């Protein structure tokens, strides 16, 4: 076909004309929407929309959540502003948690080694292991009703109950060792602090209950040159927290303990604090040499820290020198520092030790996927999602998000005790079982979750202390019956204890610690699940928020 000048003119005119019509951008818009609605893309069912109050149960922080349900299926979540600890905020994973149940890596079948198996076979194998030797159960979220089932099961069989700690909990371990108060009984009284010195803790990047510090920072520090709350970030790199802090102290990576020793020496030598703790053996010049700071900068930092008390230092994990600095500062057992909660006297043993002689180890789904128990025992691993590269002998599919009833005990770093109930909003498929259900199948005498939660509600009612925080705050003493109290808890209210009369405790520290970490001699299997991203799988929304938009700093970048 011959192309004539007329054809060319028609083509040019047509193209020019088309560009000044709505056709190109309208088609672009419509086609992009059409591509979202392809029939194989799953869509939530249309139907009555209702909003239910619940809690995120993926980690021990138990943030308050509003779950939007369409036709009985969760289609969206949002934070609950009235929640006393999380205060309306959620982490990126929390925002997409409702998508996780449909994740392609959701576990649906029992696996034994590389082959499929059955619940019956798993139960027979675990019961046989129980009869042959000691067993251990590892819990990632102690204090729940399920934890109580685990503890009862191992007590009956002379086994051991172990827990995996987050770095926030590990940071409190030295005070527990020095004072005798269990880690679960300690918390940070951030609300009353005036100066917070963070030694690498990602306070504004997902530390502990994400909403707690970010709200505090927004109210008392953000956008002010002389804020009510001074945040000093000691870190090798300009992390997101360091970039927003009132002061960033850039030190050599791994020299936080040396800086803590240097600061403590200045505080004691200059009598900036009463002589509460031991003098560090490290000289100021040595501290300066290790941290890369000048001696003058360390002196200035020490003076700044005590200029606006109360002051508390927060470590990113188990760091004895930073804990000792808090003792010197008077922050251990004092208002605005590390305080003793009103409840919690239980002490939990770490999963890092004491399980090497076990015949079998059962790992609950609450334990982060990357955790590898230091043992050669037969491992029964519960998980809702397959994160890949599992070394467990048995992989057992657990209920997903809000597919099982659970309770939500106090968040690890909270200074005040709380309690909530997260009812199951979705019916779990018969293919999955929780570890507590699995154990009840072996020992039917174990109490059910409902009964344990009811007993705990009855304890709260009998105690007559604290307040139930729902849409309104109601003192527990005003409830006429335990049923009424329980009913509110099942609807999403949070029980908040009264502030303890005495938060003080005494640390026995005669010499400055010579090792960096009390866990140094232990296995390296301690998990770092809050400041490193250890979720086995990511929901698409969290992936979008966290990875594509870089809202949260990637661990490898922080460590760079």
């Amino acid at each position, binding site marked *: 076909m011959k192309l004539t*000048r*007329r054809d060319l*003119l*028609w*083509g*040019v*005119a*047509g193209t*020019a*004309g*088309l560009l*000044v*019509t*709505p*056709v190109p951008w*309208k*088609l672009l*818009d*419509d*086609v992009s*929407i*059409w591509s*979202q*609605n392809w029939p194989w893309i799953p*869509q*939530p069912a249309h139907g009555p*929309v*209702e*909003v239910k109050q619940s809690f995120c149960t993926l980690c021990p922080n138990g943030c308050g959540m509003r779950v*939007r349900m369409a036709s009985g299926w969760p*289609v*969206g*979540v*949002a934070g609950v502003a009235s929640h006393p600890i999380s205060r309306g905020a959620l982490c990126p994973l929390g*925002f997409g948690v409702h998508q996780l149940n449909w994740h392609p890596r959701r576990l649906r079948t029992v696996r034994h080694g590389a082959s499929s198996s059955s619940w019956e076979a798993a139960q027979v194998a675990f019961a046989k292991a129980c009869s042959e030797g000691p067993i251990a159960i590892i819990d990632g979220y102690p204090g729940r009703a399920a934890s109580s089932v685990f503890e009862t099961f191992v007590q009956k069989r002379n086994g051991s109950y172990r827990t995996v700690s987050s770095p926030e909990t590990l940071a409190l371990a030295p005070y527990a060792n020095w004072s005798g108060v269990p880690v679960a009984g300690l918390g940070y009284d951030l609300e009353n602090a005036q100066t917070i010195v963070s030694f690498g803790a990602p306070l504004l990047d997902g530390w502990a209950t994400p909403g707690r510090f970010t709200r505090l920072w927004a109210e008392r520090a953000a956008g002010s040159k002389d804020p009510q709350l001074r945040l000093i970030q000691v870190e090798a790199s300009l992390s997101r927290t360091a970039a927003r802090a009132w002061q960033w102290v850039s030190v050599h990576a791994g020299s936080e303990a040396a800086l803590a020793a240097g600061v403590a020496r200045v505080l004691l030598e200059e009598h900036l604090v009463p002589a509460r703790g031991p003098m560090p053996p490290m000289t100021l010049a040595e501290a300066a040499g290790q941290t890369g700071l000048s001696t003058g900068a360390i002196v200035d930092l020490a003076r700044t820290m005590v200029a606006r008390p109360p002051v508390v230092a927060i470590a990113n994990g188990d760091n004895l020198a930073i804990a000792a600095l808090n003792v010197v500062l008077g922050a251990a057992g004092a208002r605005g520092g590390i305080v003793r909660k009103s409840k919690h006297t239980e002490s939990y043993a770490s999963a890092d030790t004491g399980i090497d002689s076990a015949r079998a180890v059962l790992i609950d789904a609450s334990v982060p996927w990357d955790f590898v128990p230091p043992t050669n025992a037969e491992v029964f691993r519960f998980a809702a999602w397959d994160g890949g590269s599992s070394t467990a002998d048995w992989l057992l599919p657990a209920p997903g998000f809000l597919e099982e009833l659970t309770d939500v005990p106090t968040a690890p770093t909270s200074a005040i005790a709380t309690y909530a109930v997260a009812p199951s909003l979705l019916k779990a498929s018969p293919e999955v079982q929780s570890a507590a259900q699995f154990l009840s199948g072996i020992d039917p005498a174990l109490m059910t979750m409902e009964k344990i939660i009811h007993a705990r509600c009855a304890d709260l009612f009998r105690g007559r202390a604290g307040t139930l925080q729902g849409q309104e705050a109601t003192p527990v003493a005003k409830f006429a019956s335990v049923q009424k109290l329980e009913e509110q808890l099942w609807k999403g209210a949070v029980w908040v204890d009264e502030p303890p009369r005495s938060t003080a405790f005494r640390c026995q520290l005669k010499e400055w610690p010579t090792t960096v970490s009390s866990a140094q001699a232990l296995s390296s299997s301690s998990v770092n699940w809050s400041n490193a991203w250890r979720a086995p799988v990511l929901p698409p929304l969290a992936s979008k*928020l966290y990875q594509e938009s870089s809202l949260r700093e990637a661990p490898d970048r922080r460590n760079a």
Partner: protein
Amino acid sequence: MSTRRNILVFGIGLAVTLLAGWVAFPRVLYVQKQQPLEFRHKTHAEKSGLAECSQCHALRDDGTFAGIPAMETCAGCHSEKMGTSKAEAILVDTYIKPGKETPWLVYAQQPANVWFSHAIHVKRAALACSECHSTYGESDEVKVYQQNRISGYSRDIWGHSISRLRRAPHEGMKMSDCEDCHRRHNLEVGCLGCHQ
């Protein structure tokens, strides 16, 4: 071919494309669908004492918007025929007596990844219904539902004007329309405000 003839060919080509883009394209793009029933907002507002929109389009106790009233709401008055119109007969015989919901075509239907709270806009922002819905609450007939053949959504999402130029504030329900209104009111909302 002379220059004059070239200009003529170019002009005709341009005119044909412009006509196709501005006039024929919208007609081809949208397919017109009739609602299953005739409905008169005006009659209900003036003669039935339903002067407030919220009397039928209510917020539930948990704050969610009930949207188009369910059949049981209509049945409150129309359990038996209230007139001799064809629409009344269809309503009572086809939907109310068999207990079936009327399959209304929803002009404001958004994709599943969009969350819009009427409660926040009506209660917190104190917006009148007419600010977004114009005078539709006083209309004497239901609009023809124009469905986009490609995306499947109503023309009301894009707005009646195919160019989206000089459209009224209540016209259009695209994300940019939400953003424009929020910007006018100095309100900033993050992605998760609407895409929960």
